[in-house]
């Protein structure tokens, strides 16, 4: 009630503001007159009476201002502040644009990177109660988080006491029959309860029912939303239709929700029930299934781990042949999905944060220079009656205007940068990171941007106020333009510049190290020649080519057809992967003639055509390559890599002629006939493990990868290769057509190194630029403050050289200080990100030295301009102008 009354009284005055002022003035004038009269009648001289009356009354302007404040609405003074702030900023367009630009840059970088961090690390996984989900693995030393075998899965599911449900999935490329011939489609095989474990219900149709994942059930499949839209036009009558996957009719029973994503599955189109067991799943030693479990209430990851470990131990005793050494691992599902990219994102966020910090420091020092310039204005305003609270508010308002402009520009730039960055991510990589699917602006991002803005604003309003309160307002009036305040500012400004240079150093070293890592990574010894190689993968229908002789015939036909293409020099084939594919397909063996205690020597396996190694230009160290006659009529042969020879045979032992046998199911002896130099089969940053190569003719398959070497552009060969294969049979699906160089450059390791090196490099270059601008600002200001001193030095005959040196020395000291501090911080920061470095130590001397030189040089360049101006001063002009 009272406040309402207050409001209306204020409102009444608001509309009669003129009258209010004139009445106030009249009243005050009356007061002074009365006082004067009283003094006069006391016998005071007229002059003195007027003066005394005025003095007794106090600062009329300030009092009127106070009275106004009593009756005015808050927003009126706020509006005044804004109007004044805009006027101030417009008066200094150079300052305004620089400050806004720098803020926009810093905020843009931080917001854009934070958007990725948010999507990957902060946003909870879109499943019911996602923190209760865990990835469950079998574990061996060579592969700490490995798939389960089907019999093990069934036992774990039955015996565990920690999961309410345990389900499995397996990525699977399906051969999809379409009227235009066969295509491959990304697919997933899942156990019946998979979606229920995640807490997802289909958008359309139904989920798998219990038992539908057994081979006794009718084959059924769920569509992803994207597949439903693209392949079936989003029509509802898709339910009940059939689709032929791998030559088997599947009934479509449902469609998954649009926003559903499961990154480890790589955006599959067809979600089929497991339909187990297949031939692999009959064997306890064939590991192909990734598992997820939902923890029971109150069960921690540690408890779950202990439980699964005890089950694994039990199975080891029960089935020593297949389960010896097979441990267990359990990790939060979030960790499984984003664990890999977390360090990179955090480093990028750190880089963006540092850039923002430099931008803020720069703007702060600009504000300081300006507050120095406005010292007199502020003093005058204070003397004329502006309260100090009002002055602080003025600075805060100017800060607000700067931050609002810089922030909104930064956010607009960020949304553009975010779109650009996501577009730069290759589709294949994106399928791996489907958590970026609903990437964009959201509440958390808004809150983040808002928090940044508030922090900047606080900084920008506090610093100038604090600076001004250091010296009394009166001082501002008395002081000559060049004096002690300049000195104290110079000290503060110098500290800021040292800080900036140090931060720039950290970013530059980070970028340098990441760049060097990338270089090392891309120049790692591959063991083959990657240029001029075209590769593609083939999936032929089992019903037609499944028999061994037919598979062998198909491989030969493919090789001969592609060899016929112009400029093709040689063609090779490998099943179970080619270089860069990973070390996933492994086998167990023992060396015959050695004691064997049932241990599992887990080794990647490749089945290759006779021409495979020569096509890659791999290097044969000893022995021979396979030839066309190495077929089932011969003894089994193998070629091993150097890592294999080193690991399993001593230095003076010759691997050639030694015999191996598979375990646990013994085969006829396998004789080693050759040793090749290590070929990078897996990720670039992982040392090549021992690898076993077998002749394709002894282990044929109807799905394999073709590698062709050409004397001309390998990219242009790819379409011709696809055409040649479709000439053989339209029902052979061709996929993953890519050149070897691209395969290397877009491999996850290379890609992540690449993008982090480029992004941090970009931040570093901007940081270098900003810190150079900052240094230039400080030195230039310092020179302008010292013009008189320098003039006096020059007048009696000091050489311009000496002045030049004076200025450069000051700048040099700042730069050296910044570089020294930066060096220490950089090494610390690099240690924190060591997991991202490859082949480079965090204190890589050459990087540190190079960065110090670059930074030093740019610092000298930045201070050269003001130094030269100082040296070319005309002492006469300087002294006269004072």
């Amino acid at each position, binding site marked *: 009630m009272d406040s309402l*009354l207050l409001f209306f*009284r204020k409102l009444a005055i608001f509309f009669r503001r003129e009258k209010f002022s004139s009445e106030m003035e009249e*009243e005050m004038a*009356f*007061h002074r007159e009365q006082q004067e009269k009283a003094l006069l009648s006391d016998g005071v001289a007229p002059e003195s009476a007027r003066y005394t009356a005025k003095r*007794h*009354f*106090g600062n009329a302007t300030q*009092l009127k201002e*106070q009275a106004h404040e009593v009756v005015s609405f808050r927003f009126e003074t706020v509006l005044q502040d804004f109007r004044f702030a805009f006027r101030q900023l417009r008066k200094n367009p150079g300052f305004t644009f620089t400050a806004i630009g720098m803020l926009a840059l810093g905020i843009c970088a931080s917001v854009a990177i934070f958007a990725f961090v948010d999507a990957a690390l902060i946003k909870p996984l879109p499943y019911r109660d996602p923190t209760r989900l865990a990835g469950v693995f079998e574990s061996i030393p060579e592969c700490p988080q490995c798939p389960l075998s089907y019999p093990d899965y069934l036992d774990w599911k039955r015996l565990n006491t920690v999961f309410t449900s345990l389900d499995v999935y397996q990525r699977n490329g399906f051969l999809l029959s379409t009227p235009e011939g066969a295509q491959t489609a990304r697919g997933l095989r899942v156990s019946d309860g998979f979606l229920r474990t995640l807490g997802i219900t289909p958008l359309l149709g139904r989920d798998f029912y219990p038992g539908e994942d057994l081979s006794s059930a009718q084959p059924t499949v769920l569509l992803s939303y994207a597949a439903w839209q693209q392949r079936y036009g989003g029509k509802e009558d898709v339910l009940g239709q059939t689709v032929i996957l791998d030559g088997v009719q599947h009934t479509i029973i449902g469609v998954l929700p649009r926003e559903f994503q499961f990154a480890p599955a790589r955006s599959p189109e067809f979600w089929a029930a497991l339909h187990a067991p297949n031939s692999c799943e009959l064997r306890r030693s064939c590991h192909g299934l990734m598992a997820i479990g939902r923890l029971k209430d109150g069960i921690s990851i540690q408890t779950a781990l202990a439980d699964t470990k005890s089950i694994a131990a039990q199975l080891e005793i029960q089935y020593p042949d297949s389960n010896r050494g097979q441990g267990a691992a359990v990790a939060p599902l979030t960790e499984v999905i984003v664990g890999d990219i977390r360090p990179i994102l955090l480093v990028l966020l750190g880089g963006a944060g540092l850039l923002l910090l430099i931008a803020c420091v720069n703007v702060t020092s600009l504000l300081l220079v300006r507050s120095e310039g406005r010292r007199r204005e502020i003093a005058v305003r204070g003397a004329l009656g502006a309260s100090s609270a009002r002055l602080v508010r003025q600075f805060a308002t100017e800060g607000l205007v700067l931050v609002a402009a810089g922030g909104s520009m930064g956010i607009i730039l960020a949304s553009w940068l975010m779109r650009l960055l996501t577009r730069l991510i290759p589709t294949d990589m994106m399928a791996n990171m489907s958590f970026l699917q609903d990437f964009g602006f959201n509440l958390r991002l808004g809150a983040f941007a808002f928090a940044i803005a508030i922090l900047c604003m606080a900084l920008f309003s506090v610093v100038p106020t604090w600076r001004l309160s250091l010296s009394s307002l009166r001082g501002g009036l008395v002081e000559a333009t060049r004096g002690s305040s300049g000195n104290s500012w110079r000290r503060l400004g110098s500290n800021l510049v040292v800080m900036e240079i140090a931060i720039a150093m950290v970013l530059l070293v980070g970028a340098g190290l990441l760049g060097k890592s990338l270089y090392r990574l891309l120049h790692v010894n591959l063991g083959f020649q990657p240029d001029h190689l075209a590769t593609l993968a083939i999936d032929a229908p089992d019903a037609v080519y499944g028999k061994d002789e037919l598979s062998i015939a198909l491989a030969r036909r493919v090789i001969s057809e592609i060899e016929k293409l112009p400029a093709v020099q040689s063609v090779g084939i490998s099943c179970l992967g080619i270089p860069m594919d990973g070390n996933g397909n492994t086998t167990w063996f023992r060396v015959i003639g050695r004691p064997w205690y049932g241990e599992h020597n887990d080794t990647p396996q490749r089945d290759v055509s006779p021409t495979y190694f020569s096509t890659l230009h791999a290097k044969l160290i000893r022995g021979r390559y396979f030839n066309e006659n190495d077929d089932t009529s011969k003894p089994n042969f193998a070629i091993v890599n150097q890592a294999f020879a080193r690991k399993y045979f001593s230095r003076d032992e010759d691997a050639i002629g030694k015999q191996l046998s598979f375990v646990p199911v013994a085969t006829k002896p396998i004789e080693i006939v050759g040793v090749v130099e290590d070929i990078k089969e897996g990720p670039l940053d992982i040392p090549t493990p021992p690898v076993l190569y077998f002749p394709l003719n002894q282990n044929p398959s109807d799905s394999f990868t073709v590698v062709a070497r050409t004397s001309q552009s390998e990219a242009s060969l790819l379409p011709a290769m696809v055409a040649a294969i479709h000439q053989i049979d339209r029902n052979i699906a061709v996929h993953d057509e890519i050149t070897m160089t691209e395969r290397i450059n877009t491999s996850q390791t290379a890609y992540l190194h690449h993008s982090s090196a480029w992004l941090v490099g970009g931040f570093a270059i901007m940081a270098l630029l900003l810190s150079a601008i900052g240094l230039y600002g400080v030195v230039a200001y310092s020179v302008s403050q010292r013009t008189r001193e320098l003039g006096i030095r020059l007048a009696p005959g000091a050489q311009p050289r000496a002045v030049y040196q004076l200025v450069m020395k000051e700048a040099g000291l700042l730069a050296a200080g910044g570089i020294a501090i930066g060096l220490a911080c950089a090494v610390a920061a690099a240690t924190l990100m060591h997991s991202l470095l490859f082949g480079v130590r965090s204190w890589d001397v050459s990087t540190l030295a190079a960065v110090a030189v670059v930074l030093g040089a740019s610092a000298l360049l930045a201070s050269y301009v003001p130094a030269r101006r100082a040296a070319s001063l005309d002492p006469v002009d300087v002294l006269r102008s004072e």
Partner: protein
Amino acid sequence: MPKKADLLPGTLDMLILRTLKRAPQHGYGIALSIKHLSDDVLTVEEGSLYPALQRLLLRGWVKAEWKKTETNRRARFYTLTPAGRKQLGAELSQFEQMIAAIGRVLQDA
């Protein structure tokens, strides 16, 4: 002559209300009254009466009216309202409590 004392913060409003309780006054008159009644001990930076008077007006504790003075000059006269009288009572009893409390503390020491 005793040293002139600054006003305790927050007491100006009370003094103004107390002065107006005797009779309506203009600003200068209020200043004079405070000075005389306190035997010249309390001085107000005279101008600061005016923002304070605006505050009291806004609260509805005083009313203002332009009238002629004895010397036939136009001046704004302030009158205490019933609400102002109530407010004065409240402030006085609060003030007395505080003074008494301070007195007890000082005696004890």
